[in-house]
């Protein structure tokens, strides 16, 4: 019941966010049609394009049209592509200029980058986080604390350039440019993705480690752990059978929340390594003001963000009976 409520809230949020993005884009001065035509805008041509894009219709109708299409995976036509293909008089294929066509392969790449990052970051940070919690206030905990704090506070591009310097320029182990393309072998692809993934790992793992440490410390202070200890169980058994099952819920929560953190990091890191993902497409489109692409990327990022936060919440609800049956 409460999960259904949370899901509904997620859908409502998504809807509101799409309204917000659409409104924001409509704050733009001037007209899409003029933006496409630039200098050579004659009134007739502007009128034709306005009709073509449906810009002559009222606001609400345009929004609904855009939203319905977006749900079906059609994000409209990219301005940059439209210049060349549909309005330049050339006979390019119908699909060429569509935003979805641009987005799909890059989306796959970004997901690949995120999965590699998660595969590296999650085990490492959980391991270090649990160790730091077990040996808290020891010298190991202090070193871990200082280094994660420094890693969190550094901008992503700083970590990225340090890694490039150490792993690509001074010791050429990994390539500093991630020019991956379709049909690449998995091993090579992995190697080229490694450096951006490592950069993101540094950012995300630090967050994750700190949150894991806090969660475990919280847990170790609870009475049932003390009871288990007082019964004379071995520390190993206390951790594995008493602490771990209860720690699972907060840890899943931590992982989901941090994958949401990843989204912001992806943009900068993809630009540094020229990784052909959504983040790079987004920044490029922002620079040339390709509004449909910006809109679509924004929507994709927001959807991923909302989805991950939703997952974190639902996991927390499922794993915690007190949340499942509120008073």
């Amino acid at each position, binding site marked *: 019941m409460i999960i259904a409520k949370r899901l509904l809230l997620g859908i409502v*949020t*998504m809807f*509101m*966010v799409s309204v*917000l*993005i659409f409104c*924001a*884009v409509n*704050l*733009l*001065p*001037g007209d899409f049609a003029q933006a496409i035509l630039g200098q050579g805008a004659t009134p007739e041509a502007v009128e034709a394009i306005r009709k073509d894009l449906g810009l002559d219709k009222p606001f609400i109708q345009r929004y609904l049209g855009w939203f319905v299409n977006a749900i079906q995976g059609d994000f409209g036509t990219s301005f940059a592509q439209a210049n060349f293909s549909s309005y330049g008089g050339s006979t390019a294929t119908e699909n060429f200029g569509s935003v979805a066509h641009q987005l799909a392969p890059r989306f796959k790449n970004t997901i690949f980058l995120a999965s590699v990052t998660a595969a590296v970051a999650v085990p490492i940070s959980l391991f270090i986080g649990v*160790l730091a919690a077990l*040996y*808290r*206030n020891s*010298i*190991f905990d202090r*070193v871990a604390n*200082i280094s994660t*704090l*420094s890693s*969190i*506070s*550094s*901008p*992503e*591009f*700083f970590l990225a*350039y*340090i890694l*490039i*310097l150490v792993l690509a*320029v*001074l010791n050429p182990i990994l390539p*500093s440019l991630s020019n991956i393309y379709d049909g690449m072998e998995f091993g090579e692809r992995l190697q080229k993705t490694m450096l951006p993934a490592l950069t993101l790992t540094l950012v995300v793992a630090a967050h994750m480690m700190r949150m894991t440490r806090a969660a475990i*410390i919280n847990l170790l202070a609870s009475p049932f752990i003390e009871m288990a200890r007082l019964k004379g169980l071995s*520390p190993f058994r206390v951790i594995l059978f008493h602490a771990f099952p209860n720690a699972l819920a907060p840890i899943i929560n931590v992982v989901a929340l941090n994958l*949401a953190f990843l*989204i*912001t990091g992806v*943009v*900068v890191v993809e*630009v*540094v390594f020229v990784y052909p993902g959504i983040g790079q497409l*987004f*920044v490029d489109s*922002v*620079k040339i*003001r390709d*509004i449909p692409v*910006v*809109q679509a*990327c*924004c929507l994709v*990022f*927001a959807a991923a*963000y*909302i989805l991950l*936060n939703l997952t974190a919440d639902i996991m927390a609800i499922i794993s915690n009976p007190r949340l499942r049956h509120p008073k």
Partner: protein
Amino acid sequence: MAFTTIMMIWLAGAVGLTLAAKALAPKAPTVEMQEWLRDVGYVAFFGYIFMITIVLLSVDYYLGYWFAEDMPAWLQAISFFGPQKLPFYGWLINGIIMFGIAGWIFRVVGRTVGTEWSKKMFRQMPVTASFGILIIILYAIMSIFADFIAPYGQADVFDKINLLPGGDPALGGDPAHLLGTDQIGRDLLSRLIYGGQNTVGIAFATTCLAFFIGTSLGFLAATLGGWFDQLLSRIVDMLMAIPQLIFALLLMTIATAWAGSERSLLTIYMVVIIAVLDSTRVFRLSRAVGMNIVVMDFFEAAKLRGENLAYLIFKEILPNAYAPLLAEFGLRFCFVFLTIASLSFLGVGIQPPLADWGTMVKDLSQFINFAAFSPLTAALPLLAAGAIALLTVAVNFVVDWMLHRSSGLKE
């Protein structure tokens, strides 16, 4: 294979040390030592061995930097890495040692000089926090007096372009431009210093604006409650559902269109956009803090006395919300600072001719490929990026300490 062998040796060492510790435990002189030796586990010893190995290897590598030219024979015999040509690691360690000593000295000075209150504060402070305060003071001085410290103006163009850093004419430098010049002949040292002024100043102004918006609305929502609170909270929920950098980029696109050819307007738009986006977090916190205060008896009493809204907010809520808000100010500043730096790095933030660190990193980034030939040149982009990192690390250290102190987390 080598990796497995090393791991096995470590493991064996850890097990051996643990067994030895257990055997030696009854003979230890004090009770504490006996207990420690009895209870210490394999994992701890494994960690100790690991850490000692790392420390020894890094000391070895650091000595390689120190004796890069003429390493004594006995050192060469025991050294694992040998002499090092590249100075990056040495610079890093030098920096850490220097900053550590500076923070420590600063703490000693703070403990002996000043009022009773400040002395007490410095006595309770860890070295990281005093280091953080020192760095913040240095940055503040550098930003405020940039006009006097910088050798040239930030937009001054010289006819010598692409001078190498170091100031040695034989290596393509110029003593007048210590860090060299960029591709259109602007002095990089001056731009680094002015970049601090612009980036830090704009981030500070943005954070202040965000706090002004966030706290006033948050406290109002807490005091008034009802539909006002509901409306604001839902709007904030919606704004927070989009990742901040993404939303900022979207709005910056629109701002660029609005600004048109007037690039200087763009910086003002950016300040407003980031302040509004960031005020949502401040709103959440100040509303939560305010909610806790509003239910207190003294607040109820003030309300029954018939005090007006301004009195309630400024005299009743604000003094009691100081500590969490101050810590939040530090965190928000870091976040805003990083967002602005990232936006500039992506090319949509602070606009030229204003110098700023994010843009500098981007413009100088390709020099990193020259690391093997000219380490100083390769260090330029890292210098600008490191300047950003250093300030946020410093602020975070101070905030960490403040949170630790105010929450009474002693564990």
